[in-house]
C-alpha cells in the first residue's frame, strides 16, 4: 500500500466515521454518579468482607464447641450456663 492509497484510505475512513464532537463535554454533571458509585462499591466491599468474616468465624466456633463437647461432655452444663 503506497502513501497515496494510504491517504485515500484515511480520507474514506474519516468520511465513513467522522470525528466525534468531543469538545461539548458530558450532557450533565457526573459528580453525583461518581459519588453514588463510590458509595455502592464501598458498601459492597465492606458488606462482603463482613459476611465472609462472620461465616468463617461462625464455622470455626461451631466446630470448636462440638469438638469440646465431644471430648469433655462435662463441659455441657458450663456452656448451658453461659449461653
Amino acid at each position: 500500500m503506497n502513501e497515496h492509497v494510504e491517504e485515500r484510505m484515511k480520507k474514506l475512513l474519516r468520511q465513513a466515521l467522522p470525528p466525534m464532537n468531543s469538545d461539548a463535554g458530558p450532557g450533565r454533571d457526573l459528580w453525583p454518579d461518581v459519588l453514588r458509585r463510590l458509595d455502592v462499591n464501598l458498601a459492597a466491599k465492606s458488606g462482603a468482607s463482613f459476611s465472609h468474616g462472620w461465616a468463617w468465624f461462625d464455622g470455626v466456633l461451631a466446630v470448636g464447641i462440638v469438638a469440646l463437647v465431644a471430648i469433655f461432655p462435662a463441659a455441657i452444663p458450663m456452656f448451658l450456663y453461659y449461653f
Partner: protein
Amino acid sequence: MRNGASYVLNQFRQGDADAYEALFRQHQRAVYGWILRIVRNPATAEELTVETFWRIHRAHSRFEPERGFEGWARRIATRVALDWLRTSRAERELSMEACAEVAAPVEADPAVRAEIRRKTALAFGRLPLKLRIAATLAVIEEQPQKEVAAALGISVVAVKLRVFRALRLLRKDLQEQGITP
C-alpha cells in the same frame, strides 16, 4: 513556595476527598471527550467516565504526582473504554452501523456514496480491537500520535504500525466486497 496544583495532586495521592473532587471537576470534560472518541456514543461515554473516576479513586495510592494527572487519567480511561468494547461487541457493531448511517457530513465528498461509507464503517468494526483503537484515535480523531501511544502504553512506532495494518486490512476487506478505494 508550595505550588497549588502539585499540592492538590499530593493531597489526592493521600486520599483527600476534596482534592479528588477538584481533580474530577478539572478533568471530567477531557476524560469524557477522550472516551467519547473511542466509544463514539455520548451516553456510554458518560457511564464510562464515571467508571474511570471510580478506578482513579481506587488507584489513588499508586498515583505518581510528578508524572501528572492528565496522562494517567487518559491511560485509565483508555483501559476502561477498551474493556467496554471487548465486552459489548454487539452493541458496538450496532453503533458503528448507526454512525455510518448518520455520518453523512455536509463537507463529505459527494462521490463517496452512502453505501460505501456504511460498508467501510462495518469493515472497520470488524478489525482487531487494538488496530481499530489506534486508527480511531490517530486517523479519525486526528489525535497526536505521541498522546495515542501514551494512552495505549505503546511506542509511537507501534502506533504507526497499527494504523498502517488497520488501513491495509480495511482496504483488503473492502476489496473483497468489490469496493476499490
